[in-house]
């Protein structure tokens, strides 16, 4: 059996690969010299590559993101880390109004190798401002590539592809994936433009689509459904913007059934986008598609409420059976 790696170590390996091979790369963000903020994904990078290149910084999300953008516009491969995606909302001007738009507004031809790493860090009774998965907001914005890996090898290769891209990329990783393992595959420098949704389990009865942690859940649910002889095809979106739904449409043509998982709220969310994209080109559903998401409230802190708040494998299996 091949060696396994965790999702978190995949991220660590990607950073080490880029820092070793690209002198113009650097990382700035809160908590980079501390294990409290970024888990096991950036261990001792400051000791290995120096505090000049691994910059722990003031709690100035907007300015730090703009600083990274300015460095990216001036020859650096800039990586900015937001250990809680909620706090990154303060940097939305630099992400949405600046990084995503300079290419178009200034007529094109501008290299912007900026990677914005946002960590979704929910659960653990952290509550409403340490829990949000805001991928749908940012996937709305033309000019901003949005990448959301679910598995360890993708966590590594998609992060490398994000950093090597000449476009601003929002790379969203999930703390709930950090310890999940996968058999290691080859480290690759991929062109982000060639990466899109991927079938992670083939099947013929129903298509289940996830992004980030919900793709891990979809895979688990698919295994459960197999026990009841339901063959689920599971697709991991991986890249939310620009979004290419072709693979999902092809799958639904085969299965006629669609269940979409979104680790955030349903209204105006990415789950709805997937169903809309399929529906525009395919109407012969065997049953109406279902989207699953969070309950329409901010994240609670109290344990029983929190347990009720997030999607469970049990609910996914039940919904899949109900279609």
């Amino acid at each position, binding site marked *: 059996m091949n060696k396994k790696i965790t999702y978190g170590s995949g991220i660590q390996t990607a950073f080490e690969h880029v820092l070793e091979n690209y002198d113009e790369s650097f990382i700035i963000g809160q908590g980079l010299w501390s294990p409290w903020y970024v888990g096991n994904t950036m261990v001792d990078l400051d000791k290995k590559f120096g505090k000049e*290149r691994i910059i722990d910084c003031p709690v100035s999300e907007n300015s730090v993101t703009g*600083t990274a953008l300015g460095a990216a*516009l*001036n020859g650096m491969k800039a990586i900015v880390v937001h250990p809680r995606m909620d706090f990154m909302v303060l940097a939305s001007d630099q992400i949405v109004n600046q990084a995503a738009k300079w290419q178009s507004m200034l*007529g094109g031809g501008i290299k912007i190798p900026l990677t914005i790493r946002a960590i979704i860090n929910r659960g653990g009774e952290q509550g409403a401002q340490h829990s949000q998965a805001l991928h749908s907001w940012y996937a709305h914005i033309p000019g901003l590539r949005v990448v959301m890996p679910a598995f360890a090898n993708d966590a590594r290769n998609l992060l490398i592809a994000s950093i090597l891209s000449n476009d601003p990329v929002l790379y969203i990783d999930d703390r709930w994936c950090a310890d999940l393992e996968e058999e290691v595959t080859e480290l690759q420098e991929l062109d982000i433009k060639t990466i899109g949704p991927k079938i992670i389990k083939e099947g013929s009865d129903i298509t289940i689509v996830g992004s980030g942690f919900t793709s891990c859940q979809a895979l688990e649910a698919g295994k459960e459904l197999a026990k009841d002889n339901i063959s689920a095809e599971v697709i991991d979106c991986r890249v939310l913007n620009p979004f290419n739904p072709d693979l999902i449409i092809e799958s639904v043509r085969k299965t006629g059934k669609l269940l979409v998982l979104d680790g955030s709220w349903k209204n105006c969310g990415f789950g709805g986008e997937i169903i809309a994209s399929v529906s525009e080109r395919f109407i012969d559903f065997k049953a109406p598609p279902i989207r699953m998401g969070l309950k329409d409230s901010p994240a609670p802190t109290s344990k029983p409420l929190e347990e009720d708040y997030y999607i469970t494998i049990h609910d996914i299996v039940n919904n899949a059976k109900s279609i």
Partner: protein
Amino acid sequence: MKKLNNLKNPKIGNEDPQLQLLSNAEYIVLLKKMITIRIAEEIISDNVKSGLIKCPCHLAIGQEAIPVAMSQFLHSDDRVYGNHRSHGHYLSLTMDTYGLFAEILGKETGCSKGMGGSMHIVGESQGFGGSVPIVSATIPVAVGAGLAMKLSKSQSVSVSYFGDGTSEEGVVHESLNIASYYNLPVIFVCENNFFSSHMHISERQKFDSISRFADAHGIESAVIDGNNIETVLDTSKKAIQAARLQRKPFFIEAVTYRLKGHVGHDDNVDVGLQRKEDLEPWKRKDPIDRLKNSLISKSAISESDFEFFNTVISEKLNKEFDQAVSDPYPQKQQLLETVYYK
């Protein structure tokens, strides 16, 4: 804490500049640059009024001395970032009046290939990294350019132009702290023209000097007459040297006056703004007239030379504008082709 004191009174301190830093020939070049920026903006103003130009144009007529003097000491690998009122910032580095006209008219020959208009202009090869209208947005970008210069151990500097109103957005303070703490070679140039859109500074802030924020972050600063080219040359030389050689930020507060309204051709004197009494005295403190007077008193130029410069530049710019009017618009496919890097 620094205060503007007499600098805010246009009737005081409006003597002509003492020309000592440069040669007469160099001052004449600067005068021609200022005239070029002035006439370019007057042409833009006229065509906003006539309706030929539709996109919002924020004119900096009266503020020309600041970018022209700053640019005197900048190199093409330095990086300058602007804001919504950046025609002068751009032209002082590039003198590309044709590219600016075409851009404002939305033509493919524009400096941003017709994708940006007046508020989003770029001239990367000559050091102008870009301007955008969200007023504080380019300040951290300029700081980031400074960080790139520090990390790559280059001797370049970055410049951030902004107005007094910008200091009311929080990212300015975050950015001053970062530039100061990390010793980044950034020159912050606050063009204090007393107005944020329609509101006078006295209606928005307890104090009138923006450089107090530099002081708070331990950044060396100077408050100067921004309509006196000699003062701006002297201070920008010092500031750019500090950034280039000592690798540290500097903050210049150049006090000036926006002779036009917030946007478009209008003077904004009849719309309830606090400027009716100030406008005429500030017109007498015009930076172009003051440099002209100094050069005439040194016998470096005559009044008729000045007229001749104006005539020649005006003819050239009007021809360029006519050419830009007849240029093609961008192809429709350019819309989707410029979203991501190609």
